[in-house]
């Protein structure tokens, strides 16, 4: 258990790498921040709060994950009022994690280190496409990669996506089995007015996986997988977007 006495220790910054998995993939960035505050409070960790009328916990998530995407190595920094070891933090957190969040690693980083979002260099995504032929995907990727510029629109702003694409290629591996897992115990056919389940049976379609490395430029713009898919004209075929890693300046977390 964390110590309870209020002490005059210097604050300590803990960096937590975690997975955001299927059950939580529809949770928005702000909802996830709120969920983390509650996880940390349940864990009884001595969180530092901002001062003022409505104090907020001093936590920072490195990079928002678009709604609907999973992440294998998401990163959050938490400032604590007193120093704790990584093991103590993990032990406190484990029982309070909801289904869909799991800890990959915890480490203490220098309190004065630069803010996480400013250190992002690139993020790598695996995108599973269903219902479109491999040939078609190959063609579109090739077309896109041959271009020098690629004007796209996002949140009413137009910008060039091309320089933000570090690499884009088809990957030969099959999607992981959990993608197709149904609810445990679910074997009955739902008594719906008509059951369109068959129409979406993944086995009946071509399945392709794209690997995309999207960069952050000097102006702080970051390539988004949903914007990339729109540019490829493949949005409607995307069944899983998984951010497998975020690369930071100076080292990979």
């Amino acid at each position, binding site marked *: 258990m964390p110590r309870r006495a209020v002490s005059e220790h210097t604050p300590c910054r803990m960096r937590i790498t975690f997975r955001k998995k*299927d059950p939580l993939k*529809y949770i*928005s960035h702000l909802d996830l921040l709120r*969920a983390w505050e*509650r996880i940390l409070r349940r864990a009884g960790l*001595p969180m530092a709060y901002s001062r003022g009328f*409505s104090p907020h916990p001093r936590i920072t998530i490195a990079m928002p994950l678009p709604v609907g995407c999973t992440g294998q190595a998401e990163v959050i920094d938490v400032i604590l009022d007193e120093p704790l070891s990584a093991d103590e933090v993990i032990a406190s957190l484990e029982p309070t994690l909801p289904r869909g969040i799991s800890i990959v690693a915890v480490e203490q980083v220098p309190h004065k280190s630069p803010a996480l979002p400013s250190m992002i260099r690139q993020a790598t995504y695996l995108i599973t496409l269903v219902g479109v032929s491999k040939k078609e995907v190959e063609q579109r990727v090739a077309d896109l990669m041959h271009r020098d510029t690629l004007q796209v629109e996002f949140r009413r702003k137009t910008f060039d996506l091309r320089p933000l694409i570090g690499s884009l290629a088809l990957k030969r591996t099959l999607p992981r089995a959990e993608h197709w897992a149904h609810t445990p115990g679910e074997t*009955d056919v*739902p008594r719906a*007015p008509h059951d369109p389940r068959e129409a979406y049976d993944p086995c009946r379609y071509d399945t392709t996986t794209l690997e995309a490395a999207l960069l952050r430029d000097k102006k702080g713009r970051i390539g988004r997988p949903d914007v990339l898919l729109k540019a490829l004209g493949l949005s409607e075929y995307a069944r899983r977007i998984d951010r497998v890693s975020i690369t930071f300046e100076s080292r990979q977390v």
Partner: protein
Amino acid sequence: MNQFLLDRWLPTVGKPARYTGHEWNAVCKSWADASVRMVLAYPDTYEVGMSNLGVQILYDVVNRHSDALCERTFAPWPDMEATMRARGIPLYALESLRPLSEFDVIGFSLPYELNLTNVLNMLDLAGLPVRATERDDGAPLVIAGGSGACHPEPMADFIDAFVVGEADEAIVEVLAAFHKARESGADKEGILRQLACVPGVYVPRFYEATYTDQGDLKAILPIVAEAQMPVVKRVVDPLPRAPTCLIVPYVQAVHDRGVVEIMRGCTQGCRFCQAGMIYRPLRERSRQDVVQTVREIARSTGYPEIGLVSLSSADHSQIRDIIKEIVTTDRRPSISVTLPSLRPDAFSVKLAQLFGSRGVRGGIRRSGLTFAPEAGSQRLRDVINKKVTEEDVLRAAEAAYANQWQRIKLYFMIGLPTETDEDVAAIVNLVHEVLQIGYKYARKKAQVSVTVSTLVPKPHTPFQWHPLIDDETLRRRQQILKKGLPRRNIRFSYHDAQSTLLEAIVARGDRRLGTAIERAWQAGARFDAWNEHLKWDAWLEAFAAVGIDPETEARRERAKTEVLPWDHISCGISKAYLWREFERATQGQTTPDCREGCTNCGAIELLECRGGR
């Protein structure tokens, strides 16, 4: 339901996390091990439903039983509804993703008149007939509770059984009776007969409504031996253990905090207030119980803020000690406390002073302090029995502004019995006086938000005989407010006349209203409480089709001798008491707080009956 299908379509709808469940403290029980499977259905959005304490209480109560299982479902927003209909996705429960049609019991909460069309829509999305008599033995049993069950007639065609009053204990008895009847091989009729024997359960098909030649309601009488007459609402005493493992939504709920019900019932006796009448008598939770529950909720949910809720939280006999104990001893992590709507009087001033010091975490949250004087003039406050003086309001405002609150919210009503234009003008004066005090402390930053709603006379209140204010007078009085109020630093809002009229009709309608509700729903009415969704034309056509004139229905004064469509449902308060209160109201006589002495409404007998059972 199948996750793959959801993954295909959820990314195309707004706020998809409303439809995925898996929140912290949600209970996913084994389907196979449960002998009775129930789904709580809330006829409004996820964010509204998850703020409802009743949902959390019943979820906790049912899931505590090892052989029962309780899941949740909410009304899908129109974009999700369109997707579900287009893609053949049936309404499903959040825990197991199973379609509602696979459950044994669907339990609707009926919190408000303006979401009844959502009940029909949810049944339809589940692939079930909306009319109770058209659902056969294989369909889930559809029950309903909540404050709407005190006046069940408008929904009598659609609901199989109502649980009247507090369901904390009754829900378990209903599920047990259901299970026993089904095990004995009973058909739906047989099951309903068993349920009708559970105290507080009203099965509308076992009662017949008769009408006079003029079409007035003559009587509602039981037609089978099992049917109770009257159906007396259930009460619990003492209050059972409050739920502490509250579900913590990811999507921000309307009330995004933990809650402890610190008491049930209210002793103020405001004559317009249905909750104040139907939740009688008063039962308090002890200080130790409240404080311990707050700590357990904080620990099990991680909420930084916990609401001490009831109809009038400042009236709890130990409220000061409770708040003191929480904010002084729980410092790490600190817990902030919120109180809903404070009474504008001397005691609340003390509360505000005690916990209003600047920048203290673990105090009462300072985002807006709400007071409800309800009427502008003393005469009219006497009529509605709101025992608050102008001096109280001004002193409360003084204390609030002096303690750094910059915004005060004030609630008023118009359309009250005996009301004149002068009474409405008095609202304007009072608001300006409050703002003057605000200027003294907060200078130009001082703000007052004023919400003026229209009185909708409700069943089981002294105003149940009173007409809804006529349109012309309403508009004139809203104009008085609009002209007098919208200056700098005052925010003024009032209720939409159409939704008020609809609410007034549904609030006091009889069984014949069911057909109109069904027609309005068929014509696309949903989320009637949300102004942008209210399809007034659909309602007008529906009323016309069944021969209801909305104007007379809502704005007709009921006679003392008239049979009211809720006379066969007893909330413990005698009709004679309500009529006496109505007469005292029109004479401007106040009735003291129940704590000063029993006013003999009859509710206390509910506890005595309970002891004898």
